[in-house]
């Protein structure tokens, strides 16, 4: 029953169009496998993503009324497969497009949808996600950032952390406490906070790779206008959880195909170097490379299955945790293998090998974060135990 098993005729044409457009339009030096790789500036990236949206690569399954293309998750999957096949820049607004957008579609007012959603797709507003806090970590029931009434508006005080992209964002999808600590996650509400205001301080956190992709965000009496409160107060958590469940299974849907692109880059680079090519003949290395491909194929199947269930109107329950966990650990093993192989190139290495060494050293370090962000390994295993295996929780976990 996999999606790939039942290609419709128009799916073939759709895929061909997406593939042709990307082949023609992706600047060669933005490809992470290029010897002269140079990532786009923020402005270049914004313009590129806005173009991608116009050409039908973003907002695919969103309604046309809000700037979307009104298609289904099946076309979204096809586009993601084509995006994954090429070593393209990552989205600068994936929080807007893959987290805030779906939540807005689910719980916001008609006026809010028309205001927020096109701005996301057109890259006029980049969003970040204000969920985690220093003291709460993965345990969102312990959030302390408070939203208090100020007339019809709200005042925000507190601190968020691991806020991906906050330094380039205009809005924060903020989960804040409007009830008491004792209400735990029932006292939480969602807001679309404007970051460009005096009460907000954003401090980028340098990551293990040296990039500053994550931030701390401090709120000192920051203002949320009434029209930027999302959904009913104290229902924020429930709405977020519903969407997060789907999001775990659907965001960065291109990952399996990007993973395959990385493997292809590694193998073709090794094959072009005489010493590394000999390594590829070694059966212990072949076993490990084939296992990476096995991991990738399994990941593709998990993602395709998610799409089929959702397109069929079903619920994916905790199944997003299966693909997230499988991907994050398989990708760690792959990145370590890539570094291990490329380290064995004769010295000095060719420019192609050196470029690959740079790419995969960074990928290795970055991969350490992949079992931490968007729910650590421990959180995902807990979800699988609770939601999929439905193990009794008893008095403790």
């Amino acid at each position, binding site marked *: 029953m996999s999606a790939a098993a039942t290609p419709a005729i128009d799916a073939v044409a759709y895929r061909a169009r997406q593939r042709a457009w990307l082949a023609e339009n992706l600047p060669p030096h933005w490809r992470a496998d290029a010897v002269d790789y140079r990532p786009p500036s923020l402005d270049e990236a914004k313009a590129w993503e806005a173009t991608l949206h116009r050409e039908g690569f973003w907002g695919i399954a969103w309604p046309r009324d809000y700037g979307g293309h009104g298609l289904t998750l099946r076309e979204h999957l096809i586009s993601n497969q084509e995006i994954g096949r090429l070593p393209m820049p990552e989205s600068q607004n994936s929080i807007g497009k893959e987290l805030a957008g779906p939540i807005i579609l689910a719980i916001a007012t008609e006026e809010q949808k028309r205001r927020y959603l096109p701005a996301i797709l057109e890259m006029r507003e980049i969003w970040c996600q204000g969920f985690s806090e220093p003291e709460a970590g993965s345990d969102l029931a312990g959030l302390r950032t408070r939203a208090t009434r100020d007339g019809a508006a709200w005042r925000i005080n507190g601190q968020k952390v691991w806020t991906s992209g906050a330094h380039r964002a205009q809005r924060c999808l903020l989960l804040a406490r409007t009830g008491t600590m004792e209400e735990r996650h029932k006292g939480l509400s969602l807001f679309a906070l404007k970051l460009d205001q005096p009460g907000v301080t954003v401090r980028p956190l340098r990551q293990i790779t040296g990039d500053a992709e994550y931030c701390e965000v401090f709120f000192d009496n920051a203002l949320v206008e009434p029209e930027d409160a999302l959904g009913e107060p104290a229902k924020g958590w429930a709405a977020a959880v519903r969407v997060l469940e789907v999001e775990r299974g659907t965001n960065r849907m291109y990952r399996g195909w990007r993973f395959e692109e990385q493997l292809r880059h590694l193998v073709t680079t090794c094959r072009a170097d005489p010493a590394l090519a000999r390594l590829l003949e070694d059966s212990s290395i072949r076993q490990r490379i*084939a296992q990476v491909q096995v991991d990738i194929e399994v990941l593709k199947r*998990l993602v395709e299955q998610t799409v089929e269930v959702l397109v069929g109107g079903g619920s994916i329950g905790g199944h997003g945790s299966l693909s997230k966990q499988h991907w994050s650990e398989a990708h760690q093993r792959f990145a370590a293998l890539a570094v291990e192989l490329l380290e064995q190139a004769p010295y000095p290495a060719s420019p192609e090998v050196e470029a690959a060494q740079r790419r995969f050293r960074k990928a290795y370090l970055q991969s350490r974060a992949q079992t931490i962000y968007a729910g650590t390994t421990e959180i995902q295993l807990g979800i699988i135990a609770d939601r999929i295996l439905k193990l009794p*929780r008893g008095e403790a976990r």
Partner: protein
Amino acid sequence: MSEHSDIAAEIARTAQRVVAECDGLDTASVAARLGEAGLLGVLAPEAVGGLGLPLSAVAPVVEVAEAGLLAFPLVETLLAARLLAETQPDLAAALVAGEAVLTIAGAGSLSPGVSGVVGRAPLGTAARWLLAPLGEGAVLLALDAPGVTVAEDPGFDLERPAARVSVSGATPAATIPAAAWATLRADALLLRAAGALGAAGHCMDRAIEHLTGRRQFGRPLVTMQGLRFSLARQKIALEGARHALEHALALAGQDPQGESVPRLVARATCAEAAPAVIESAIQLHGGMGFTWDLGLHRQLRRAKEAAAALDAVAARAALAGRLEEAWAL
């Protein structure tokens, strides 16, 4: 597909009931019961009394059979009935009806003079018919024919003790061409993979049941995080293998030779996941786990034999070769 899905679900329900009823019966009676329930003709065409369904429709039956330790060469019968339907319609019809017992040699090969020793034929001492490899194809032999001797040759499997068959210039009842034989072997691997996963899922369920009912250190074992994590990891492996297998089953008809990437991936994932999950289920039973009477070792024995046939190492080696072709510069 959805019509087939409905039928497949109905078949699986029937299998669940019938497999339980077969417990303790002799081989002939098991055959009769399965045949009566229509479970042996799922793949065979209607002309011999079968349903003519695709491979994916019968996988749930094999899952249930392995979980329930059915003492019968089920995969062999299902595929032989399909294979022989055109050339040996009477035998195929008898297989579908559960009136004949056939097995397949899992090891060894006969020489062109239809002589030699083959083995690992499940329930060979209770069977009337044998398919045995010869060259690139195979031959069909009556096990009571002149020049054929059958002896027990025990391996892991307890319910279906394997037989060794010595053949000396026997006259085959039929000759199976290479292509048809390759298809049977490839499809047999996928069905054995399905069976191993079915057994693994069953054993995991039993481990969960055990941990849920048992208290230690003042609380139910199932609430302990280390054990939950272990089960969650097993579930990831099991679901990954299941999806890989479903994909391969769905595309099986497009690759009758058994060399496609989906088949190789299914072999590699199922061969590793199934025994690991059962081993873990045994571990989670603590001291009870390694008693004979708990019985999970029976599923483990069969899953280990299936895993040896699926041969994850060979599947990955072939997959590496496929990557080379696909990514040739």
